[in-house]
């Protein structure tokens, strides 16, 4: 596989993408103090609201920065493709997002992001800013349940952000926001498959190859190896094995209400995602559970990687209400749902 990207240079890839985003959505988001790598909402922060921030590498649009906006995140620090941003950028972002009620740092569980957020929160502490950290560890394929805190964070982040941001928007305290977000994460599981690799612009070639008739089950969104390599299967078989793994980790029973996110990794057409959604409804119906909310589309990608992930969130009344709370960013809204 040869790299074929519409870009000017690998080194300018992220900054030009960011400039494009600020040019397109300058009425909604802005670069904090002109720093392209710290994206915040365009308006001024709401006094007293708990700040919800995230950070992570580029190459996952609309993750991460695409979820900054009304009813969603307050700020996002942006790294290079698949790499964490620095602690100092996170610190600036936390400082901006703090409106006196503290800041929740809600991000995917990756080594670089973890350490940088740790440092940034130590800096923030010194400045007297109250912070909390939650690492999203939703990928059931990446570690067994007894090591759940080692799991990678994947598309489950979107539900975590949605819940946390809605709670903050309702003016809950930092402790309350943190508690409900942790509860949501206890109810969130994801699992992915990959059909093709993707290429980091600065690397110029894929970090792995997948045979033409094979797929990687449980692959991470940066191409981290999964559970097993298997021959291609039918959509129904794929959904069954993914849902088996999710439900094996977080049992679903008759009458449970759930939200489902069928996420395209970038190269997989939307047509195929809806074929999967159909199979999921059948799987869930067999259990007797009910799908109350669904997102189908590209919510967390790995550039051109082909593949998809399924995320399930078990709902209760509070989580449902927070999920339905209006959200509107340039990349994500539930106003049309």
């Amino acid at each position, binding site marked *: 596989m040869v790299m074929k990207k519409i870009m000017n240079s690998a080194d300018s890839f992220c900054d030009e993408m960011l400039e494009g985003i600020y040019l397109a959505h300058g009425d909604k988001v802005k670069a904090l103090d002109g720093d392209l790598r710290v994206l915040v909402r365009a308006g001024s922060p709401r006094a007293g609201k708990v700040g919800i921030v995230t950070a992570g590498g580029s190459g996952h649009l609309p993750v991460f920065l695409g979820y900054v906006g009304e009813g969603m995140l307050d700020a996002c620090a942006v790294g290079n493709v698949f*790499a964490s*941003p*620095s602690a*100092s950028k996170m610190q600036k972002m936390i400082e901006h997002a703090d409106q006196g009620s503290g800041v929740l740092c809600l991000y995917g569980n990756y080594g670089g992001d973890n350490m940088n957020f740790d*440092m940034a929160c130590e800096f923030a502490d010194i400045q007297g800013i109250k912070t909390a950290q939650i690492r999203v560890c939703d990928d059931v394929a990446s570690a067994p349940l007894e090591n759940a805190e080692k799991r990678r964070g994947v598309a489950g982040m979107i539900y975590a952000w949605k819940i946390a941001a809605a709670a903050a928007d309702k003016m809950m305290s930092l402790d309350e926001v943190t508690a409900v977000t942790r509860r949501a994460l206890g109810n969130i599981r994801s699992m992915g498959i990959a059909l093709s690799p993707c290429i980091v612009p600065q690397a110029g070639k894929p970090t792995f190859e997948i045979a033409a008739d094979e797929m990687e089950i449980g692959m991470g969104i*940066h191409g981290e190896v999964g559970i097993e390599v298997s021959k291609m299967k039918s959509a129904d078989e794929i959904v069954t094995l993914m849902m088996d793994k999710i439900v094996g980790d977080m049992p679903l029973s008759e009458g449970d209400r759930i939200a489902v996110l069928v996420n395209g990794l970038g190269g997989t057409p939307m047509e195929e995602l809806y074929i999967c959604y159909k199979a999921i409804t059948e799987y869930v119906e067999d259990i007797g559970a009910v799908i109350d909310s669904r997102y189908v589309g590209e919510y967390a990608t790995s550039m051109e990687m082909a593949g998809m992930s399924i995320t399930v969130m078990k709902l209760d009344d509070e989580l449902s209400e927070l999920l339905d709370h209006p959200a509107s960013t340039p990349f994500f809204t539930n106003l049309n749902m």
Partner: protein
Amino acid sequence: MNRMTGNDILEIFKFIEVEMRENSSHLIHLDSFGGDGDLGISMCQGFRGIIEELSNLDLSDMELKDVFLKAAMAINEYSPSSLGTILCAGMIGGAKMIGTESESFSVRYRNFVAGALDGIMQRAGSKRGEKTILDAIGGALDALEKSIASGDSPEDAVQAASSGARDGMEATKDMIAVHGRAAYRKENSRGYVDGGATVGMLIFKAVSEYVVGN
């Protein structure tokens, strides 16, 4: 080489940067087994960043401790990947222990390396034997201790550290990764050398070559 200045440190970072550049595809290759294959890129960026930042400073009179603190913030800024951040923590830890000119080169070097090891272990929650850069650093530290115990010269000390780091790196081949993305491979992470440990080895190699050559 008994007296080191900030300028020497900058020159050493230049040596390191050359190593990273020349071994970039090898590092990408190693990082691809279990990681995301960005190691060669992030290390080049990180050390270039350090060189850029330090080049703007008057280093001749700066304490080595402060030079390393600047370098630590620079590598995190320019390469905030896992290993960039780990090296940041390492340099902060090392800077705390590097002491003053009253001590010999070899002792300061040993103390710096010990401080770096400690700093990383605390920041990253890891220890030797877990298939990371710590194994290279630990190997270097063991060799340094021995070298100092036998009263070796600075040249001998850096060469000992370099070969100790290489041994530490090579030992990672048979280890199972428990940290970083490679840990997801579990048993399958055995059989190849850790990319971060290789970076560690290259750093000690560059230090050795600079010190021996000057």
